[in-house]
């Protein structure tokens, strides 16, 4: 759950009265854009991405213009711009027109959790506006934050002084930056990054203005819901399958999925964070999704997870795989009932397909669960192999891949024919 840019970022900053540039969205009229140009001389046109996206400037996605014609041209260019971000390509969905803030300094500022010292930390540089990783250590400084007190003014003052920040900017920064801790701490953020933060001269004073923002939210912290951001902005990269499964998210039992390859052939029900990590790696492209359904989900939840998974992916499934280590607390019987009851009901409603089932699992009520699955699969005339908890999980995964190859190549067609013949 991330956002970037002022389209929604300004709403965050408003919560703590942190100054942001005056701005318009892509739907602004020509008159409104012209008025913005008239007022500020120059404006910045940026694409809107519905997630945390960096290095936009480097990619030429930020345009500074001083007339309506150029502004509209920039809008046309950027409205649906695509941007390669790490290994991912994201698409824009609109633009913003933002006041150009004159400043002779650009500040980088962020707050996040440091796993090195296990404390929240702020990081600051007065040579911001660039890729932060490119700065030498003497240009950037990180200081931990006492969570029950917040961002301390003296820490900021000392740090800015150490970074040789011009004296005239220190006071406005020290007065305003602690507001960002309030935002971070009160609204369930896990990262906030302002880059660049420019210092705008207003009369004799300087006002720090957040010219770009990136924020990430902790999905386990309900505080972010108070902001009132449209949830759709976090779902731009969520598939309909993932969205449907996400609705089942409760603290009892996991229901995490990531759709990996809808053209994959193995439908893997993975149990446990470890199994999720290891199994997804082993299955590679064959896995339709990555999942973690561990944490002892109740029957109803497991049934729903399975029902939704089958609804979306049954037609592509060649091998149905149930994989996990030796569960500590997850009741295998309950989870298997959920999965195989849903399978039976799905087939009853949508028709039979020749799918091979491979199971590798251990844990409480294992035999009861396996026999339950076996009886349903026998009834459905689906072939299966179930491996004991004393089998290596990785060997089971590799076996499932080999079964998948054979079943795709010849097994399923032959079997479907034999079932058809025997009625």
């Amino acid at each position, binding site marked *: 759950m991330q956002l970037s840019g002022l389209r929604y970022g300004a709403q965050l900053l408003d919560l703590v009265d942190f100054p942001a540039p005056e701005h318009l969205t892509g739907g602004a009229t020509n008159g409104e854009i012209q008025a913005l140009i008239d007022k500020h001389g120059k404006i910045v046109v940026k694409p809107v991405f519905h997630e945390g996206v960096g290095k936009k400037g480097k990619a030429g996605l930020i345009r500074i213009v001083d007339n309506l014609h150029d502004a509209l041209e920039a809008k046309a260019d950027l409205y649906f711009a695509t941007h390669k971000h790490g290994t991912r390509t994201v698409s824009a969905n609109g633009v913003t027109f933002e006041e150009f803030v004159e400043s002779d300094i650009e500040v980088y500022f962020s707050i996040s*959790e440091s796993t090195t010292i296990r404390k929240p930390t702020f990081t600051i540089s007065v040579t911001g506006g660039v890729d932060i990783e490119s700065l030498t250590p003497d240009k950037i400084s990180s200081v931990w934050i006492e969570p*029950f007190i917040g961002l301390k003014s003296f820490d900021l003052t000392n740090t800015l002084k150490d970074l040789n920040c011009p004296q005239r900017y220190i006071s406005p920064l020290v007065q305003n930056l602690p507001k960002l801790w309030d935002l971070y*701490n009160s609204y369930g953020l896990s990262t906030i990054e302002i880059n660049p933060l420019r210092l705008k001269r207003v009369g004799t004073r300087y006002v720090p203005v957040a010219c770009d923002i990136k924020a990430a939210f902790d999905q386990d912290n309900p505080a972010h819901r108070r902001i009132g951001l449209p949830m759709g902005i976090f779902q731009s990269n969520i598939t309909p399958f993932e969205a449907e499964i996400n609705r089942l998210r409760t*603290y009892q039992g996991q229901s995490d999925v990531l759709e990996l390859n809808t053209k994959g052939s193995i439908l893997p029900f993975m149990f446990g964070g470890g199994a999720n990590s290891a199994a997804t*790696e082993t299955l590679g492209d064959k896995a339709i999704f990555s999942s973690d359904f561990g944490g002892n989900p109740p029957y109803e939840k497991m049934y729903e997870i399975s029902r939704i998974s089958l609804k979306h992916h049954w037609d592509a499934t060649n091998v149905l795989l149930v994989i996990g280590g030796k569960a*500590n607390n997850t009741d295998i019987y309950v989870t298997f009932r959920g999965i195989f009851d849903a399978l*039976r009901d799905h087939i009853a409603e949508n028709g039979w397909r020749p799918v091979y089932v491979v199971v590798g699992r251990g844990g409480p009520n294992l035999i009861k669960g396996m026999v*339950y699955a076996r009886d349903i699969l026998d009834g459905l005339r689906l072939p299966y192999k*179930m491996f004991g908890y004393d089998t290596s999980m990785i*060997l089971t995964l590799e076996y499932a891949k080999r079964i998948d190859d054979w079943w795709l190549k010849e097994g399923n067609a032959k079997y479907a024919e034999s079932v058809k013949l025997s009625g």
Partner: protein
Amino acid sequence: MRQLKSKPFESYVGVYSLEEMVTKDSRVCVINILGSESRKVTPVSHEYSKGNVVAGVQYGREGKLETKLGDIPVYPSVREVIKNKHHFDTGVIYLPPTAVSQAVSELLSYNHDLKRIIIVTEKVSTADSRNIRFLCQEAGVDVIGCNCLGIANAWDEVRIGGALGGDAPEETLHKGSIAIHSNSGNFTTTMAEYLRTEGFGISTAVSSGKDVYIHFALAEFLFAAQNDPRTRAVALYVEPGGYYEKVALEMIAERRIAFSKPIVVCVTGRWKKDITRSCGHAGALSGAGDDAISKENWFDEYFGVGCYDPDNPVVSKRGVRVDSIQTVPVAMKAVFDEIGETPDFASQGDLSLKLWLSDNVVQVPPKLDMPMIEPLEPYAEQLGVVNKQVGAQYLRQSMSDKSGASRIDPMSHVAQLHNRSILDLSTNTLEENIYFSLAKIMPEEEDLPTINTLLNLMMRLDSDEMVAVDRARANGATPNAYLASELASIGNRPVLAKASEHISRVISAIREYGIDDTTGKIPEEFDKQIIKEMLIKKAPAQDTETEFLLKMVKGSKKKCTSLKICKHILTLADKKKMYVRDMQAFLLGTMTLCIFWKPLLRKRVSRQLVEDIPHYLYTIARTFACSVIDRKNNKHWQKLTGGPLTGLKSSFTENAYQFLFNAKPGETELLEFKYLIGLTLTNGPGTISAKGAKESVSARNYISMAFVGFLANTGLAHGGNGFEAVEFLLKNFAESNLVDPGDAKHGIDLKALAAKAAKEYGEFKVREKALGALRVKPIPCINHPVFKGAAVNIDPREDFICKQFAEKGIYNVFVEFYHLLVQELFNQGITRNVFCVNIDAVLAVIALKLVWDNRNAGKLTDEMVQNLVFTLFLYGRTIGVAAEIVDHRDRGTDMDCRTPQSKLKYVL
């Protein structure tokens, strides 16, 4: 701000050696001890650890948690635990995520001897986690978690926190020299299990959790492992995200902590590099520098060798990295060889593929083929026991106000039975719906003759024993009452009880001897058992019903294991010149088992239900039989019950119609009859009819009494207000000279009739209001609490039926009248919008149409018409209620329909 520091760390760490982290002397208090997870896990932990849980907290409650070592006292708060002088050094938290930080604060506030807190809860927010860290750092308390399974010490046989080792920790946690630190709770146990294959046991295993904050991280763990004399090496499982490993390895490199023991580490999760939201562990989300490859490099650099390759094993004295946890044991063995040490014990088992269960229908190629292996004990023994079980199984729970059979669809507001709308079901025959109500699926075509035969035959059985019905009728009892009087006496009727016994015996034998469709020769042992338990030498008396059933069973071509076995029993009896004991019950049982065998195998229905089927079918058939109004003069009834056996395979629906209306139905009448019955199958589990049945089940009555419970909870208020609608329609059509309600050319000015009715109601309303009535009695069967508020309102159920009528060319004058009436009420300003005609109207108009001829001919009085409408409602609901009874018997607990004292109110 000054912070506590424990050398060599920059923060507080209270564990010097793993040996002391949890011991047999550790004493524990579990928060939310009676929660669903803790309630199961804590007793196992307590017993394995020889009784280390001194108390638990369940907010707002007091009580105890039973264990084999005695009860653990439960208090409403930590303060009360301390006040009652329970001393503990470790707190375990099982609360929902938002409550965790509060519990930490409470533990710190009231217990100054606290050393450690283990947080099992997952999905604790990062903000709460950092607050917890600061609180505990200031207090000098170690935290393990969140989202972890705690710690286990195999030397002392102690586990604290979650369920490491599952429900049998002694199976997995063998004493040895390997300390485990794992980001995955499951892999903590799985690695311990795997390590035994190369002869390694464990000293202490720590499930660290993998949230953003890992409070007991690798640096602290390695420091404590180094100081632990039991530990000779360390096994780690690591996922992407966080710099914990880098910090630890740098501390070693910079000699801030002395660490000299070898490490085998498994790093997984390269694929997580590109994801932007977590899947699996919340903290396994990496940035650019802490992804899986970075972590692999940190360790490879530390070890000085690359990833372990079993074909070319190279390890260093510092250890090695592996790419999957299955390689941890062999890599550990290689590292031990390198440092010149030997494993803890002889290897136990191996990790090769062990096929426990396999289908026997698909032959896989030789390279994928393998023999099945008998599981290790105790799994092999469990397999033997579980193999004999069959059918759906449910966890028993309080089923008061709950149902697994019916519900109201929250979107359409239409009632559903077994997830199918009553609108769909109303197009089925009665026999189909009866089967569906019990089996949860529609019957197969080939089973319909058997279902009809069973229902028709059961109507015939005891057809001359209806004393109670006749007496009740004579006393003016309503249909529900006279039906109940007869059903109550069914009890555990011997022929039904014996049929159930036969079913049970056959199911047990099939599972005991592993017989299925592919079994060629039936085992001799099976025959011996049958001869002993089921066959007799003395020929029983013959009766026509039994002969008919025998012929039917012998002639059946259905492919079904249960039928195969029953036929085998009959053949065996012939061969041995013996007879099957209680033949009629055996054949009834055989036929019912045969039609329910597939749903039983597919776990749609429970074994209990299948054994009970004869009782259900008999009770339902008896309900229909007892409702025949004038048995002596009903030629259809006489034909079925008197004289030779004829027409047993005919449709039960047609028979039911004929018995009720004493007339043969045409195609239209039959359709209308089906709609009528289908629409009243259920109105959800909240109806008093369903509740009556459920309450009777919860009091542990025989099945027929559960139907009595339903009947006792129906009355003149039922059929919606269809009963009143009939009265209303009769009044409005009294002077219309209507001949055939199904003829569109009826010649009546319906619009005028509707306008008149609307006007009269408007005047009535004004009068009532003038007299000060707070609520004016409404016109029956219009308007609905859900389908209202629009300019023109429609009840989708009524709309469905009207469309069905239109499609099939069925006309009903009363429906048209009702539609004109709601429009007229609006036109005359009596209603603010056009009300809907609701589903109850459908019931009334169909019923009235069906009886119109007989009423006009004087064969039925208006009271009889109203009774008939009520009976029709009871027909539908009997079928639907059967599903509630089955469901409650399968899942409920005794007396679960009681209302708790706290919810009762005394009204003055």
